[in-house]
């Protein structure tokens, strides 16, 4: 259920771009993020909201400012659940093939 939100959030290039910006420099205000995108403030806010709902962005108040932080944990969890599983399988298939070819040689 949470995976759905993460995949949906990552399915949009603007949102991936926002994550990349936060990866470069974390803890930024809406105004800073907005200045790097050709998009209205409202549009950026909407995308940040989707990222926040997916847990990929966490906001904190510092003084009068609301700062946006990249939270990489959901990506790690998706990786553990979806990537590890299939790459392990593929590696295993190749290992089996290698054994078969070597045994028959």
């Amino acid at each position, binding site marked *: 259920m*949470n995976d759905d939100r993460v995949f949906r959030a990552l399915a949009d290039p603007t949102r991936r771009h926002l994550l990349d910006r936060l*990866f*470069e*420099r*974390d*803890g930024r205000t809406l105004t800073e993020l907005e200045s790097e995108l050709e998009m209205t403030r409202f549009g950026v806010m909407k995308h940040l909201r989707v990222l926040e709902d997916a*847990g990929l962005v*966490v906001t*904190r108040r510092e003084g009068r400012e609301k*700062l946006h*932080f990249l*939270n*990489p*944990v*959901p990506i*790690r*969890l998706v990786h*553990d659940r979806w990537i590890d599983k299939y790459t392990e399988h593929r590696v295993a298939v190749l290992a089996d093939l290698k054994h078969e070819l070597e045994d028959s040689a």
Partner: protein
Amino acid sequence: MSTITALTTQVYSVYIRATPEQVWDAITQPEWTARYFYGARIEVGPEWRKVYSPDGGDDWGSTSVTEFDPPRRLVHEWKSSYNPELAVEEPSRVSWEIEAQEDGTTLLTVVHDQLEGAPKTAESVSGNGWMYVLSGLKTLLETGEPLAG
């Protein structure tokens, strides 16, 4: 990896299918931490957070606890005593915030900040550092088993 600036505040959060009390126990009791915190045995009380090596033998140092509010909030000083190169850096601060959610899960947020005087620690705990701890904690509480590998 590209240059990362502003690592002086890092925020990590994860939803865990467990109660706030279970999450609190898992971050304050050594028999729990040993199973997901790089094997470290960590004991947290109202004043001190004591860290021991995986076999319980070596004292990896104590840091002061500044907020102790079970099962909601824990704030303590951080020193990377597990690595001599990092241990000499200035202490930083770690806050654990535990919030029960309406759907019965618990949101755990870790804020590691005041890292201005500890750039190597900042680098070390970012990326896989805290992520490994939090995904391990989630797996342990939800399945009863530590993360494999």
